[in-house]
């Protein structure tokens, strides 16, 4: 943390509570923002008055021996990563920092995780506790700063991917991990089909795999862990070994890889890792050992959804395209009713990010 960071750190939760109270009085909805890095992605367009929570920031506590860090939601991820780095620790879920703009709160709300997700978990898996302010303006604490906690419902994890529609996140406690001693990338020339098969087979071996993605006819496997284990696995698996600066993991995580360039709609498939790849929607980028696949272009929604269902998952319009319509797949009437009831349980007056997740939510 630089001195300027420390000077910027402050608790603005009372301001947030006041803003919510005012919004309720006026019956006007709020759109929660901080770094603004994901405004045009993940969710739908949300037409509401902005509630900027970026000033509510700062690391509250980092106990390296406990593997736990607690920070205010508006804290930039880069600041969190820097504090962890001083103790050779990392955010296990490798989130995109989007040029330093991404905050901890936004990352949890969007449940964004990087290439290590299948092995080290999503931010959803690492969250130990949250403080949040619900739609009634009540400050609530769930979970805590310990590794295991099953008292009450797991409201902390429920915030992952809820896009701020259940409450304004104010503080987040996360489990962190030691930085792996060594990282090494192996590259192979393979078709998509061969790559998916190989990724899944390799993921079934007890080896220190921490990344597996395929693009443009090349499969990249990343090994992380004790140097001896990484080296011996690399010898067994073969392939072309790449230096860190040649390996495209940062480009993948930050979505700066050329695959993600331009304005054409970007679709995200979240599917069974072993599902057979399809060329139906043009060239794909296959990450998470097959469980996350990206395609580009204008495609009929029904066709995309059928393909996702066939592959055991779902598809969302991640970026671009029509963000006024629903960007997520339709739910069954029972699912829809329960999601609406849950929303109402936290935000009865529909103040928080209405329509950001679904047009009807």
């Amino acid at each position: 943390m630089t001195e300027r960071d420390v000077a910027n750190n402050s608790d603005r939760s009372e301001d947030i509570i006041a803003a919510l109270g005012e919004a309720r009085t006026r019956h006007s909805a709020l759109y929660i923002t901080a770094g603004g890095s994901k405004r045009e992605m993940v969710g739908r367009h949300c037409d509401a008055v902005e509630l900027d929570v970026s000033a509510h920031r700062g690391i509250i506590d980092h106990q390296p021996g406990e593997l736990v860090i607690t920070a205010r939601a508006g804290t930039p991820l880069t600041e969190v990563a820097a504090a962890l780095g001083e103790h050779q620790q990392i955010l296990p879920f490798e989130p995109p920092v989007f040029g330093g703009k991404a905050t901890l709160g936004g990352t949890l709300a969007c449940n964004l995780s990087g290439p290590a997700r299948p092995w080290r978990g999503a931010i959803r898996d690492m969250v130990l506790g949250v403080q949040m302010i619900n739609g009634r303006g009540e400050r609530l604490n769930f979970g805590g700063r310990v590794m295991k906690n099953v008292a009450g419902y797991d409201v902390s994890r429920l915030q992952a991917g809820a896009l701020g529609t259940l409450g304004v996140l104010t503080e987040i406690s996360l489990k962190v991990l030691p930085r792996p001693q060594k990282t090494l990338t192996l590259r192979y020339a393979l078709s998509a089909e061969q790559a998916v098969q190989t990724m899944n087979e390799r993921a079934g071996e007890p080896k220190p795999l921490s990344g597996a993605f395929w693009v443009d006819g090349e499969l990249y496997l990343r090994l992380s862990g004790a140097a001896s284990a990484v080296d011996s696995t690399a010898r067994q698996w073969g392939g072309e070994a790449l230096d860190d600066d040649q390996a495209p993991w940062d480009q993948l995580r930050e979505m700066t890889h050329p695959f993600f360039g331009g304005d054409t709609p970007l679709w995200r498939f979240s599917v069974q890792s072993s599902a057979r790849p399809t060329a139906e929607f043009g060239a794909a980028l296959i990450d998470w050992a097959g469980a996350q696949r990206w395609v580009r272009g204008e495609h009929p929604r029904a066709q995309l959804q059928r393909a996702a269902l066939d592959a055991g998952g779902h598809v969302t319009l991640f970026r671009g395209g029509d963000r006024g319509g629903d960007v997520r797949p339709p739910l069954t009437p029972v699912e829809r009713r329960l999601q609406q009831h849950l929303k109402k349980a936290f935000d009865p007056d529909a103040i928080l990010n209405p329509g950001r997740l679904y047009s009807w939510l």
Partner: protein
Amino acid sequence: MTIARRTEDEDMQVNNAERLSASGTREALIRRLRDCLPADCVIENSESQRPYECDALTIYRDLPLAVVLPQNVQQVEDVLRICHTLDVPVVARGAGTGLCAGAMPHPEGVLLALGKLDRILEIDPLARTARVEPGVSNLSISEAAARHGLYYAPDPSSQVACSIGGNVSENSGGVHCLKYGLTVHNILAMNILTVAGEALAIGSLGLDSPGYDLMALFTGSEGLLGIVTEVTVRLLPAPEIARVVMAGFDSIDAAGNAVGAVIAAGIIPAGLEMMDRLAVRAAEDFAHAGYPRDAAAILLCEMDGTREEVAEHVDRVVQLFRELGATSLTVSADEHQRALLWKGRKSAFPAVGRIAPDYYCMDGTIPRGQVAYVLNEIYRLSKQYGLPVANVFHAGDGNLHPLILFDASDPEQVRQAESFGADILDLSVRVGGCLTGEHGVGVEKLRKMPSQFSPHELIQFEDIKYAFDPALNLNPGKGIPILKRCQEYRALPDRHRHD
């Protein structure tokens, strides 16, 4: 307290049964249940119901109107629809190994025992998943996956018997969750029936789902939100090798420091367990595992992974323990010795059970750095209450399991044990921990919930409950307290009241 409560419950059950009988509801319920279930799958008489009167926390007991044992999902749905129509409570039960009275029957309700739904439906070795019914035992998933070199990671001590449905309801952990996570980290998808018997599929075969994360909300929800009828779990590759380091220490503080030192060295062991003197001696007498009887505490630190990584980490852990004053050190040389070293730990509960008529197992979780302080406080309380305590627990997670020794035939000792337990929970919360790490709230810790949660937080839990179960018919009186102040604006059924 417990004994007095038992008598009241009995009285209450008679009254409720009479009332229901007078209205004809009980007869209607049994008749309809019999219409859709085979004769031997509906148990009405109290003698045959006895095996279902409690879970593994046996001080809380009750009998339901009926025990039902559905054989398939359609029958589960039928039972739920009948109970929904007649406004009758439903308590789900897996293998009954729970430790918070979460599966204790409701005197006005149906006990829905899911043990007959015990099929492993599919194992997909390439995708590394298993699709199973809720009554399948935890261990049998790993056994079935073993031929593919895979296993299911969460391993509660009861894994031979406990069911995956129960694991989901309690978000069970185990010895290896420090490295591999809890149930919530190891399941992908579930089929649920709502309280009204409607089908709901949550999660996906991918790693997330499009709306709210109901997998997170349902896991650990203690049967309060819906009934699990199928679970898809993630399987992991079985490690190449596992080795365990056992170290004895001459003080609790030295052992506590050693726990922190392993983590600070950047090593995440597969398991890091601590046992104190009373537990060590009981376990050694029982299992002859080779534990040092003179140690104030021992640590069992297991490393697993590739051969190279395990060799490297074992060396570092041995060196660390030596530097931190270990009075004895043993490294498992082979699988036989590893199994023996774990045998003592795994049999510690029954071993402690041999040295006292009864024990009461607590489950607070605390920051790792507080382990020594909290254990010393527990010893102080032990003296104050005059009840011995043995500690066997997941030190790496800070998840304590103090076993309070008492005699349940002495009402005064029961009162003292409950009071001692409550003090331990307060202590856990005070040092920044929580009431329960993996056993759940159930009936047992319901009254302690306000020590961890504010009224607003409890009301938020209650509102979540109403979102899924507006008539409060799923496992009423457990998990989350329904607050009196809410009763002002809601007509609360009698069954959910508690003081």
